[in-house]
């Protein structure tokens, strides 16, 4: 493999990785404050997708559709918290996981029943398909935008978590919810905020995801939630830097196997990447950057 090819693949991995990192962060945030692995998180991307699909179908500008799509994902995330997960506060990990899974199935089938069970195309701006050429490398605008948006979101979140009172409260709640409450962090508010940010991240990631695939379908949430789940577990559930790291590692593994495997075994690149993940977890059963303290 030549240096140019390696560079090309690294850019692919970076762009895929920033998307996975965004996805994983949204999942990790909610897990941190509530102990919930929100399976319905993938459906937030579906909601963004269908909002954009219906709006662009009716002649709304793409950019406006993007903003409304992200807003809807955020609102949906908040509604999920209020109506499905608040009654289950303090339930076991298993109960929470099952209920989010059931919620995911409900949302999927709402779209299946109301819009269409079939895949629908969404056209993004033509800019996305164009590429710029730097020496032997050709980089699509979509990759550049994905990486830029990803890094911007990560930095913004970092700033928010480090400097704002609400962000510090959320980090405290993730570390020890009971003690954070004793220090004056409002439980309902911090959990709702986590869901809002999580919905926002899902919306942004959803736009990037859909621009990449160019289509929406009712079951489209499954792959992103899977990637996010895997990324957070590699990084160590509950650790935000871990989620980001896990996202990039997963993307690198996928890109690597697609590039390296001969065409006859190419369809098995995903299984290989997942096997690699399981091997990592064999040596680090709690993930790479797991919080040290045992959760009660």
């Amino acid at each position, binding site marked *: 493999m030549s240096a140019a090819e390696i560079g090309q693949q690294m850019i692919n991995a970076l762009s895929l990785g920033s998307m996975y990192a965004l996805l994983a962060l949204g999942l990790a945030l909610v897990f941190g404050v509530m102990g919930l692995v929100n399976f319905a998180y993938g459906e937030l991307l579906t909601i963004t997708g269908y909002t954009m699909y219906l709006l662009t179908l009716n002649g709304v500008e793409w950019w406006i559709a993007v903003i409304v799509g992200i807003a809807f994902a955020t609102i949906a995330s908040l509604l999920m918290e209020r109506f499905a997960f608040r009654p289950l506060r303090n339930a076991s990990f298993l109960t929470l996981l099952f209920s989010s899974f059931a919620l995911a199935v409900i949302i999927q*089938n709402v779209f*299946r029943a109301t819009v269409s069970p079939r895949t629908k195309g969404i056209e993004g701006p033509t800019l996305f398909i164009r590429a710029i050429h730097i020496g032997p490398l050709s980089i699509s605008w979509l990759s550049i935008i994905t990486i830029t948006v990803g890094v911007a979101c990560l930095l913004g979140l970092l700033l928010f978590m480090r400097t704002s009172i609400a962000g510090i409260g959320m980090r405290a709640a993730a570390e020890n919810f009971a003690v954070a409450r004793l220090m004056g962090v409002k439980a309902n508010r911090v959990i709702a905020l986590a869901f809002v940010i999580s919905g926002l991240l899902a919306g942004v990631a959803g736009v990037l995801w859909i621009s990449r695939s160019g289509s929406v379908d009712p079951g489209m949430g499954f792959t992103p939630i899977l990637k996010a789940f895997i990324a957070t577990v590699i990084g160590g559930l509950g650790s935000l830097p871990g989620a980001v790291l896990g996202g990039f590692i997963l993307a690198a593994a996928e890109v690597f196997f697609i590039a390296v495997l001969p065409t006859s075994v190419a369809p098995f690149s995903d299984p290989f990447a997942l096997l690699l993940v399981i091997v990592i977890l064999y040596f680090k059963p709690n993930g790479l950057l797991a919080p040290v303290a045992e959760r009660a």
Partner: protein
Amino acid sequence: MNRLRSSLYFRNVTKTSGLIIAFLLIIAVVGALSAGTGSSLTLIIPNFFITVIIVIALQMFTGNSGVVSWGHSAFVGIGAYVTAWLTVPAVIKSDVFDSMPSWLLNAEWSFLPSIVVATAAGTIVAALIGIVLCRMKETAMAMSTLALLVIAHGVYANWFGMTRGAQGVYGLPQNTTLWGAFGFACFAVIVGVMFRDSRVGLRLQASREDPLAAEATGVSVVKSRYIAWVASAALAALSGSVWAQFNLAFDPSQFYYTQVFAVLSMLVIGGMATMSGAVIGAGVVTVISQVLYNLEGGSFFGMEVPRISGLQQMILAIITLLILIYRRNGILSWWELDEWVRKGKDRFFPGRPGSGAGPLSDKKDGV
């Protein structure tokens, strides 16, 4: 195991599984009576029995350990594919499987041997994966079983020479009869109850309630989980083999997350702590699916492990969510059917000596 405990153990196992098997027997008799009438019950009832095996397989692991597994459908798939390799007649095999070694091409095995080998195949795979899986924390393990499901699906859908990819496999002989399915369901019930009240089962339940406290009292959580994982995967592979020889054709999508959701919802609705819960959950979901299926106006036709399309799936999900919110431990909660009968007796005929649950079935309320 001392004599007192062992006699209690067998009394408990006999009582619990006896009542469930009696319940299954009634259904089997209904199925036998409906044979030849062209009623859809001749398809639904054997499929219900097979579903019971799958749900019990998952109950053995998830119900006792409290660790979710999305991966059991992968083992159902292994059971089904291995069975297809062994039983499909040689004439059809050369059409279906492109790159099958010749020694396997001529294999035309009968019902029981193919089930034994298919179960063994699932057991071996589970034993290997379990070494890695069972060391993980609960959350990581849940994710890895999901990864396992995706890996298995990737293999079934892409290993064209041996699985015919997404087009699926056909041509299996119909070896599973109503009574065959009934027999295996009873077997699963007995194994499930015996396992739950066994030492490993009790240790697992301790670790489900509090892993740290269980470790502190000397329970090896990893070892107990490993045993449960392998045993339940074996049962899942067995169910896949029985299922394949009843439905005769299948494709990879049937071992993917639609089935996972169906099985999980049965477990949640019935109550995952008990064997009766698993069976009742399977029954409730089968009945609801059928009713909805008829409501949808679709013609009634070879249905697999409850085939769930849009509306059915949505309503099942809503019921599951409501159960989780309002009756978190499922319909039967912590008590087996025989214990419910006893509880009922206690309520209506109070003060009778000797009533009440035995020491092995003291379960706590709520949680």
